[in-house]
């Protein structure tokens, strides 16, 4: 029974394909999977927007949307209808072709990343040899669409926002890649399916996820920071800082094109969380051996939603960084830590089993964390904190 529930989507697809002639099965199978991905993630996006508006509302001590449907859960429907019926305004001085192409390219490249993510046991569109490389290649292509959007609008806020976004994405992409390279070093494969399999064993009922090692934990922290910056989320949302740049690179977009940018941002968050849970949190694996009877896809999407929750939580609590802080943080803190982590991972590999490597690797990382942090703070000369309360 559990086995069948685990494979329900795979079985369903094969059952559907069984009605087709032999030569049609492969192309139609691909189309079915692609349609599922393209249908599923916008639906999750709709759910997440409600969660986010409700969650951030609670954090900011207000109710959030509560007018459309019970508890405001039909809000995304209203938003969708609104963005579909709004007039699509293109500025007269804008570069019409590039302005039109930018949101489309963004959404296409963002969705491409899901092609290699394993969403459950046997649930991956293409098991590529170079899956991780494919994912990052697609991620790198989104930068260009952001630039296209900002440049073609012929608006200084758009251009500034796009330049900020591109600079930020390039800087943090280095960290993103370097923190993932550690996993590749350990598993010896770029295939995401193999990376999940490498974590797929338990001892004493507990999983062997990569996050539960010193180097894995450090890499996960760096990955989370870089992933947040890659998706332009708060506290790294300078490209869209509304107090400075109106709305950044999508200032001049309205109607459905704006909705596409919005969709692209959230789907990119899903995708980066999905990759993060695949690399560090065991992908579709259960967190305890005893819970393996629950289908694998529930675990994958559960992890996805937990990380979305963290995204929302961080957005509600942290203030936005300044441009120089952002760059300093990327190049003076995250990058050195990632490079050091590569050495630590190599050390871990060659020290063999035993408790000694836990001590040595953790000590190196903690020491580096403290000393780089202290060194960075030393020049800042912060005084003691003072609080002022409203009278």
């Amino acid at each position, binding site marked *: 029974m559990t086995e069948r529930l685990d494979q329900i989507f795979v079985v369903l697809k094969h059952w559907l394909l069984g009605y087709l002639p032999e030569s049609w099965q492969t192309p139609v199978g691909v189309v079915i999977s692609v349609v599922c991905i393209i249908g599923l993630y916008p639906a999750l996006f709709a759910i997440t927007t409600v969660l986010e508006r409700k969650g951030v509302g609670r954090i900011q001590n207000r109710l959030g949307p509560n007018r459309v449907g019970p508890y405001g859960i039909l809000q995304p429907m209203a938003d969708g209808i609104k963005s579909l019926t709004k007039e699509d305004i293109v500025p007269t001085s804008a*570069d019409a072709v*590039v302005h039109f192409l930018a949101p489309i390219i963004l959404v296409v490249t963002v969705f491409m990343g899901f092609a290699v993510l394993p969403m459950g046991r046997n649930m991956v569109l293409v098991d590529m040899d170079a899956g991780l490389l494919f994912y990052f290649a697609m991620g790198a292509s989104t930068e260009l669409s952001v630039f296209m959007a900002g440049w073609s609008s012929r608006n200084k806020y758009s251009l*500034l926002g796009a330049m900020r976004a591109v600079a930020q994405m390039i800087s943090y992409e280095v960290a993103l890649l370097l923190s993932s390279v550690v996993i590749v070093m350990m598993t010896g494969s770029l295939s995401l399916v193999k990376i999940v399999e490498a974590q797929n064993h338990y001892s004493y009922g507990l999983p062997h996820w990569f996050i539960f090692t010193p180097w894995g934990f450090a890499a996960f922290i760096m990955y989370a920071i870089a992933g947040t910056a890659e998706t332009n989320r708060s506290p790294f949302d300078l490209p869209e800082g509304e107090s400075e740049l109106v709305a950044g690179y999508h200032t001049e977009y309205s109607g459905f094109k704006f909705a596409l940018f919005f969709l692209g941002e959230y789907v990119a968050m899903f995708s980066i969380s999905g990759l993060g849970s695949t690399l560090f949190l065991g992908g579709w694996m259960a967190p305890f051996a005893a819970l393996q009877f629950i289908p694998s896809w529930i675990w994958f999407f559960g992890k996805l939603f937990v990380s979305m929750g963290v995204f929302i939580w961080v957005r509600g609590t942290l203030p936005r960084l300044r441009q120089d802080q952002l760059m300093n943080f990327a190049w003076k803190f995250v990058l050195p830590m990632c490079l050091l982590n590569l050495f630590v991972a190599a050390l871990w590999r060659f020290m063999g089993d035993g408790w000694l490597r836990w001590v040595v690797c953790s000590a190196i990382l903690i020491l580096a964390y403290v000393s780089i942090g202290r060194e960075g703070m030393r020049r800042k000369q912060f005084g003691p904190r003072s609080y002022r309360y409203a009278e």
Partner: protein
Amino acid sequence: MGLVFYLISAFAVGGALAAVLLKNLVHAALALTIAFFGLALLFLRLDAQFAGFAQILVYVGAVAILVVFAILLTKGSEVPKDGVFSKSWLAGLAISAGVFAVLAWAVMQAAPSLPNESAVPSVSVNDIGNALMSRYVLPLEIIAVLLTAAPLGAVIVAMHEKAGKQEKLGAPGPGSPRTSSGSWGGDFVSETWETRKN
């Protein structure tokens, strides 16, 4: 070969031609990206996954962005009045045609001497990694040193600028090799306004 090959080739060649012929520099840069993408697709068509994805990652993700940044930072996005074509375009055309002829001749000459393999050689990413880390480790290290030297040089150039100017917008950090510009923002704003006036 077949239809797909010709479609991809048309894509790549069309992008490259547009990159040369378009008047607006940013359009030309975007067209060049299309050419890069077409090349990546050609690699993928030859089952060279690593080369194809590396092509996208490096050229579309980094080189195209670098080109675009360079155009915007150097006030080059405005179209000059006397057109983008230089007066010596005929000589340039002759030289490039000559280079192309020599390369084509060399390739044609070399083709018969290659071993005639009927089966497609299968090289996995794993094999490439092993080769890079064992047999070709010295060239890899040399390239690594070269690439490390480049950011160091870029940082030094950027630091010089900062000392002279006094930081106005706060230190932009050591700066990446690709984004190390002392003055953020100011240039872009003035430039957009100028292009708007035209």
